[in-house]
């Protein structure tokens, strides 16, 4: 596709072609993300409905598939109310502060061996930086709303996100050691060769810890203390309506998808196939099943998104002190312990990776 672009726009400077190409990729990824969110809202309601032994939305469109579009239209048509004593500038800015990092983080995601917007060297570091940036949006939203509930919610969210950021960072240190690179593409490449050589076996505790911290990081059930309906109404976005609320919603779901895609990239071999490394399949007509493609990544991501929703349907919310003690007293020690174990394995040459 890029070759086509180059031949079509050959009169332009190569720099300009690169710029247009990048913009095109960004547009594709952003539109796909928004469509993912549209799908995810429907998927979530349907899955939770099924888990409650009911059928979920089935009125709008065939089998209710247009439900989230109807929801979106309703949200966009609603009046945007800005509270009288709110700080107007930050009140309007904070949804964007949450959305922009959530979208920007997708720049370094390798969807397939070829398709990656920005293959930068410090990809993992960039991701850590951007995922923690979201907390500013939450704090500012709570503060600018000038409401006690919103403020309490944002304080909770901030403490929670900071606590789980550490466990998440440590889990990523393990991945970094195993993958030997900060480039996400190289981390996936290090996992080539079948289900058993993916990082989820040698790094199993880190895999679990990473996913749990990911859930806490996105303020999803069972860690959604920041918007605990029972205690603080809706938390940091209680004063938002219409488009403001829609953007918070969008950011939350994009973050969910981001955590899912990152978990699959770092622990489940990203674009690698489930069937890779099975000699029987590789030599037969089903060899296309063993080839790496974006399809496998999407499948793994969908599985983790399902787990997100599954969790929401299954468990009640954590109490705040339980949440904090889980973060500080359980997850962080486990990650540190496992990094120690990994160091020993690394030096003793046990495990799938080798010292270069």
């Amino acid at each position: 596709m890029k070759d086509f672009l180059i031949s079509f726009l050959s009169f332009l400077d190569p720099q300009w072609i690169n710029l247009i190409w990048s913009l095109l990729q960004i547009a594709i990824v952003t539109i796909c993300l928004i469509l993912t969110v549209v799908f995810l809202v429907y998927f979530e309601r349907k899955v939770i409905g099924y888990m409650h032994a009911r059928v979920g939305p089935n009125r709008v469109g065939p089998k209710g598939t247009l439900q989230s579009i109807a929801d979106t239209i309703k949200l966009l048509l609603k009046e945007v109310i800005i509270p009288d004593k709110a700080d107007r500038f930050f009140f309007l800015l904070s949804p964007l502060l949450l959305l922009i990092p959530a979208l920007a983080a997708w720049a370094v995601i390798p969807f397939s061996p070829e398709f990656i917007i920005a293959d930068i060297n410090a990809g993992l570091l960039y991701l850590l930086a951007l995922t923690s940036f979201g907390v500013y949006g939450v704090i500012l939203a709570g503060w600018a709303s000038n409401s006690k509930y919103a403020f309490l919610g944002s304080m909770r969210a901030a403490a929670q996100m900071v606590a789980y950021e550490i466990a998440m960072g440590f889990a990523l240190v393990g991945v970094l050691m195993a993958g030997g690179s900060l480039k996400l593409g190289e981390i996936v490449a290090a996992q080539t060769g079948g289900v058993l050589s993916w990082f989820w076996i040698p790094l199993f505790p880190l895999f679990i810890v990473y996913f749990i911290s990911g859930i806490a990081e996105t303020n999803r059930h069972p860690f959604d203390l920041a918007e605990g309906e029972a205690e603080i109404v809706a938390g940091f976005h209680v004063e938002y309506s219409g488009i403001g609320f829609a953007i918070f919603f969008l950011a939350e779901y994009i973050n969910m998808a981001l955590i899912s895609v990152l978990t699959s990239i770092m622990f489940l071999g990203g674009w690698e196939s489930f069937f890779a490394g099975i000699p029987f399949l590789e030599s037969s007509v089903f060899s296309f099943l063993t080839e790496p493609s974006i399809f496998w990544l999407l499948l793994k991501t969908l599985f983790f998104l399902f787990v997100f929703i599954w969790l929401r349907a299954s468990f009640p919310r954590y109490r705040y002190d339980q949440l904090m003690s889980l973060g500080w007293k359980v997850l962080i020690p486990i990650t540190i312990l496992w990094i120690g174990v990994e160091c020993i394995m690394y030096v003793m040459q046990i495990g799938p990776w080798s010292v270069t």
Partner: protein
Amino acid sequence: MNIIQLIKKLTLIDFIKGFIVTLKAFFRRKVTVQYPEVKTPLSPRFRGKLALMRYDNGEERCIACKLCSAVCPAQAISIESEERADGSRRTTKFEIDAFKCIYCGFCEEACPVDSIVETDIFEYHMTENEQRIQTKEMLLATGDEYREQTIENKKKDSRYR
């Protein structure tokens, strides 16, 4: 914390159990009734919208004994009566406040002439607050409208009364 608890916590065994419960429910047969298109069967004893019945010759049954108004736990019924020209006692005002009514059916039980009855109509609404007062004319009209099905329902239920 003893060692068993620690192992339980670290293996997330309780979480896995919880996951299995919801996953089983996920594949269970769904029993949701698609309400406006599909309706669940109603018992002939169903207590719905109130109505006043007439005799076969068109004469209203109510004799203004006020038993229904006396037995009503929500005090939703108010009755005024006068002697009519032919010497019989009839109501001049028979009003039910539909918002007060709790559909207990005591009025129907109390009525000596089977005048006030509860139909099996439950899909009705008011658009204005004043419409909650069901006047005698409205109640009689309801009775006329659903006369056949109400009589049929009462017949079906009669051997259990």
